[in-house]
């Protein structure tokens, strides 16, 4: 069964704007990861944040984690048309990872 739930399901923005996607989960985790999937392609790992971390940056990506609220957010700054993809959060428990349904991001040039 799925664990993470992304919000919104779909997001459409103009190039240059920031995009924020949220993820909520239900059980305790070791870490949380964000992945990107371009249409028809495989999953690409973006960033991992551990349960004892609150914020992490990687290039134009910023991820926050609030374990008390069981939620995470992914911020993409200065978006580009090439950022158009589906974004999934994955919660990493003791043994396995569970994925949400994803947020479909469209960045219009």
């Amino acid at each position, binding site marked *: *069964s*799925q664990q993470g739930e992304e919000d919104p399901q779909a997001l459409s923005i103009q190039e240059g704007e920031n995009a924020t996607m949220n993820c909520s989960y239900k059980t305790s985790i*070791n*870490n949380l*990861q964000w*992945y990107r999937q371009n249409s028809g*392609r*495989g*999953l*690409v*790992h973006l960033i*991992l944040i551990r349960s004892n971390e609150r914020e992490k940056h990687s290039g134009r990506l910023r991820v926050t984690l609030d374990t008390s609220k069981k939620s995470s957010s992914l911020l993409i700054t200065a978006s580009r048309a090439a950022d158009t993809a589906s974004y*999934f959060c*994955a919660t*990493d428990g003791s*043994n*396995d*990872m*569970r*994925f*949400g*349904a*994803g947020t479909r991001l469209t960045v219009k040039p």
Partner: protein
Amino acid sequence: GAGVSQSPSNKVTEKGKDVELRCDPISGHTALYWYRQSLGQGLEFLIYFQGNSAPDKSGLPSDRFSAERTGGSVSTLTIQRTQQEDSAVYLCASRVQGLAAGTQYFGPGTRLTVL
């Protein structure tokens, strides 16, 4: 190879036929996962292998689905008597297991179409 590989990349089969999907994980990765992704949907966990432990089969949707992992490396996902609702992309992932397991590395997937 450097990454997770899967074969075939595409498989078209007729309803009722059996299919086998193959996954070659990254060498040294003890954990191997199978997921299914239907069109426009998220990833659905199917099965998880960790070393020599009994696999976690809790995600398999029916007894038509089975998987094995030989020698702790290559894995085969078998779907018997395929149905049209089995049409999806089947993704395999591997990683080093443990508390600091970190990233899963995904293969490109096998797109299964059941006619």
